[in-house]
């Protein structure tokens, strides 16, 4: 792998840029791997990366039915924060947020992590109490967040109308170290590092079946032939139920569409991320100047990667009230992704009824922020059979009633 640096750019500039190599390989699948990961989204690639980096396991293939990063990883609005309520969530999301801080250096790939601050608005009395409670919980968990009053909200975000007629801004939960990153770059950076460790990232290779023998996994059937493995990681987000079905077990997951949209680029006007959970909308400004906007999920099961237009209308209507200056913005693009939602709105990182099969899913509307932490924990789970970070996220927690209830925090998609 050719290292990226200012020096490398200068050197290449002097010789017509002929020295750059492919960022990752395009190999044919081998007959057998120690570990197969299904899904080359951020979570799958990060799992492979930490299997190699932390455990020296590099005979690994990541199988992807489309192109790498083409699932939710390339479709999300890139909000990164760790201000969750429950301890197990705080542990894995804060681990993840801190790994984002050094990701560009670790991967030698600029993921444009921008800790610009995330503000969650309180617009009802209920939310005031909820966010103050979260701020206290975060203090105990060692996650730096703070309750702020309306005047400070206005100071941090001057374009906001804090005394809107219907839902005035009553304060907010402020996480100064939260922010955004370039989503594609996260997938590409991990793919490049995995490829460099000798792993095979195989695109256009859909897994169509899982083979087992006496309750142990033996391999997968794919559109590019059968491939054997000792361990299998299912990391396919919205397709989790579908792929689990191939191995003969069910998941407590429903797949629904979540949409986002971006506006035409405008001059810098907002240098933080704002989430308004009561009115169902959130917004940030990309480096190109586009306003990046998201809202809530559609209500019904859906695998089509497109949602209903009235949800877009709802989101935009809410944001126009809070940010009157965007009322005349033109929208450039709109898209959807299929998100995997669990009953307690927390992810599943778990062993499964099939020996050697592990599942990482249920990140739903908010797993971009979790990519490095999830990969770190999933790799440990797959390599050692247990991980302190994943213990509580076992798929059997629903039967035992040990929920990790983040449904309040996830009142709006994020």
């Amino acid at each position, binding site marked *: 792998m050719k290292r990226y640096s200012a020096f490398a750019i200068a050197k290449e500039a002097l010789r017509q840029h002929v020295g750059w190599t492919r960022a990752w390989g395009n190999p044919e699948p081998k007959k057998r791997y120690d570990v197969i990961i299904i899904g080359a989204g951020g979570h799958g690639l990060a799992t492979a990366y930490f299997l190699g980096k932390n455990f020296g396991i590099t005979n690994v293939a990541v199988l992807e039915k489309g192109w790498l990063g083409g699932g939710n990883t390339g479709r999300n609005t890139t909000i990164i924060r760790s201000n969750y309520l429950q301890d197990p969530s705080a542990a894995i999301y804060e681990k993840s947020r801190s790994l984002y801080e050094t990701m560009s250096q670790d991967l030698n790939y600029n993921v444009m992590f921008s800790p610009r601050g995330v503000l969650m608005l309180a617009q009802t009395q209920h939310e005031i109490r909820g966010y103050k409670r979260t701020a206290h919980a975060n203090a105990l968990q060692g996650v730096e967040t703070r309750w702020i009053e309306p005047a400070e909200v206005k100071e941090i975000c001057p374009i906001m109308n804090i005394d809107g007629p219907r839902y005035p801004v009553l304060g907010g939960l402020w996480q100064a170290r939260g922010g955004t990153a370039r989503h594609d770059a996260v997938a590409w950076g991990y793919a490049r590092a995995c490829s460099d460790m000798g792993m095979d990232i195989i695109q256009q290779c859909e897994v169509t079946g899982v083979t087992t023998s006496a309750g142990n996994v033996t391999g997968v059937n794919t559109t590019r032939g059968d491939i054997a493995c000792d361990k299998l990681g299912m990391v396919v987000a919205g397709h989790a139920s579908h792929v689990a079905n191939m191995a003969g077990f069910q998941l*407590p997951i429903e797949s629904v569409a979540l949409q986002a949209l971006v506006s035409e680029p405008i001059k810098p006007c907002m240098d933080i991320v704002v989430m308004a959970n009561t009115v169902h909308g959130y917004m940030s400004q990309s480096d190109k100047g586009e306003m990046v906007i998201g809202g809530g999920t559609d209500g019904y099961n859906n695998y089509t990667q497109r949602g209903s237009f009235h949800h877009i209308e709802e989101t935009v209507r809410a944001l126009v009230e809070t940010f009157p200056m965007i009322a005349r913005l033109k929208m450039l693009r709109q898209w959807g992704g299929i998100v995997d939602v669990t009953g307690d709105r927390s992810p599943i990182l778990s062993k499964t009824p099939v020996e050697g099969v592990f599942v990482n899913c249920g990140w739903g509307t908010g797993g971009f922020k979790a990519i490095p932490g999830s990969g770190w924990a999933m790799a440990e789970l797959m390599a050692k059979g247990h991980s302190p970070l994943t213990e509580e996220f076992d798929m059997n927690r629903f039967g035992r009633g040990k929920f990790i209830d983040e449904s309040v925090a996830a009142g709006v998609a994020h």
Partner: protein
Amino acid sequence: MLTLYCPCCGEDVDETDLHAGGEAHLKRFGPGSSDEEFEGYLFMRENPKGVHFERWHHTYGCGKWFLAARCTQTLEVFGTYPAQTLEPPKDIRDKITKKRPGWTWGALS
């Protein structure tokens, strides 16, 4: 926009007037059942990429529940039927079989 025929009031209804109620034909388990049965009823879902039987509430209309058979991969609606039905009616199942040979749903096919 999804349009579903409400069998209660006999109208074609836009999804903005409806509320999705999740998987249909769940077998309810209560006191005296095993933990596994209770978990299955409360949390485990078919969530298929394909034929889905589901509940809908005609919220801004007659206010009643009905059931629908729909494909989650294409959003094609195969038919709707009254909520007082324990299994998808035969005519709807036949229609699905014609369009999606080999479909399954739990023990049904």
